[in-house]
């Protein structure tokens, strides 16, 4: 796949050549709306958006367009998508420089996963309640039973196809609305999300009941 013409011209112009500025202008004319949209997507005031946009533009041109030269035209990704990923990451860098890193850490992620598993356990009728495991720490028999149930739920979940697992993750861990999930997963409408959720949960209930029956 050939590089976009504006990018080709930009990368072939020497840094101090007379054509470098013109090539950079041409690149911005074509891609500024996309870069501005990316900067805007992270929210904030108009000034914050423009600061982010200016930061992205400066970083893209830095060191003779070093970041743009990193794009590899090998058919693995289109330039536009790569540019959006790169620009968004630069926007996040700008945010961190300005405000520092967020306080989120692995414990927060682990907490969200526990909450998600609890919600899923409720919906599938599983007897597992992650909280019970902590309560049963002094009761070895009960603890073993709960860990076994928990393990069965995890086993059944891990056997699901990737798209089903992702849908559950987006719904229960990230707490996204059906419309957002439909957009991310390429589904035609939120109703397809609900239908698939219903099917997945019914399947999980059936698998868990069969598992419990087999376990005797």
């Amino acid at each position: 796949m050939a590089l976009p013409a504006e990018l080709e011209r930009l990368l072939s112009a020497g840094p101090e050549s007379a054509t470098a500025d013109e090539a950079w202008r041409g690149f911005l004319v074509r891609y500024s709306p996309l870069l501005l949209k990316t900067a805007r997507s992270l929210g904030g005031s108009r000034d914050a958006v423009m600061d982010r946009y200016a930061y992205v533009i400066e970083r893209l041109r830095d060191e003779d367009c070093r970041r743009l030269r990193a794009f590899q035209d090998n058919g693995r990704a289109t330039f536009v998508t790569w540019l959006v990923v790169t620009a968004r990451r630069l926007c996040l860098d700008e945010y961190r420089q300005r405000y520092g890193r967020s306080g989120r850490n692995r414990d927060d992620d682990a907490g969200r996963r526990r909450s998600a598993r609890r919600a899923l356990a409720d919906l599938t009728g599983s007897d597992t309640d992650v909280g019970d495991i902590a309560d049963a720490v002094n009761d070895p028999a009960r603890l073993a039973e709960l860990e076994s149930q928990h393990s069965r739920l995890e086993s059944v979940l891990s056997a699901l196809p990737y798209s089903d697992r992702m849908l559950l993750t987006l719904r229960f861990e990230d707490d996204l609305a059906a419309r957002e999930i439909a957009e991310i997963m390429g589904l035609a409408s939120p109703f397809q999300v609900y239908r698939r959720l219903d099917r997945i949960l019914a399947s999980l209930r059936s698998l868990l009941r069969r598992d419990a029956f087999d376990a005797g």
Partner: protein
Amino acid sequence: MTPPAAPVADSHPSAELMAGYVDRQLPPAEQSAIEQHLLGCSQCRQEYGAVRRLVRTPVPAWGRWAGALATAALLTLVIWGSAGRSRDAVHVREPARDAASVPRLQEPRGTVLTARRLIWQPVPNALSYRLTVFDSVGRAVFESETPDTVEIVPDSVRFTPGQSYFWKVEAQAEWGRWAPSALTPFVVKPVP
């Protein structure tokens, strides 16, 4: 719902891998590795969702003006701030193009094995492209707008093997003016 937490700190996908995954152009092994990572990393899931929305929704009309104005402002700063460069007036817009320049559709054309990617030749100075895929009775089954010359058809759009489809691309060279390509047919080859 997710496998045991993966060590995410050192395994976030590169920009190329994330973009390739969004575009569905990675080989199966790499695609699977990224999927496993996404299941365990909320940060990368957020990035994937955001990038997908950004590349699939068109830039709103007002965004083009805002982009042009922002570009003009920044270019003025760049030109004035650069030592040794002449202080010429900044021209943000290229001259109007010849109306005869229309996109040439590259693939899919005729009988194809798959039609997940729509590719066309760029039109000089085009600001944006609007593409439409029609079924054999003229219903639009997919529409999109992009500044690129490649569009990935989402999974929710299914082309029935053996059925004829038609597609066209319109290039926007000036605000409000669109030049359409010829309507090009294709058929996804039925699997024997």
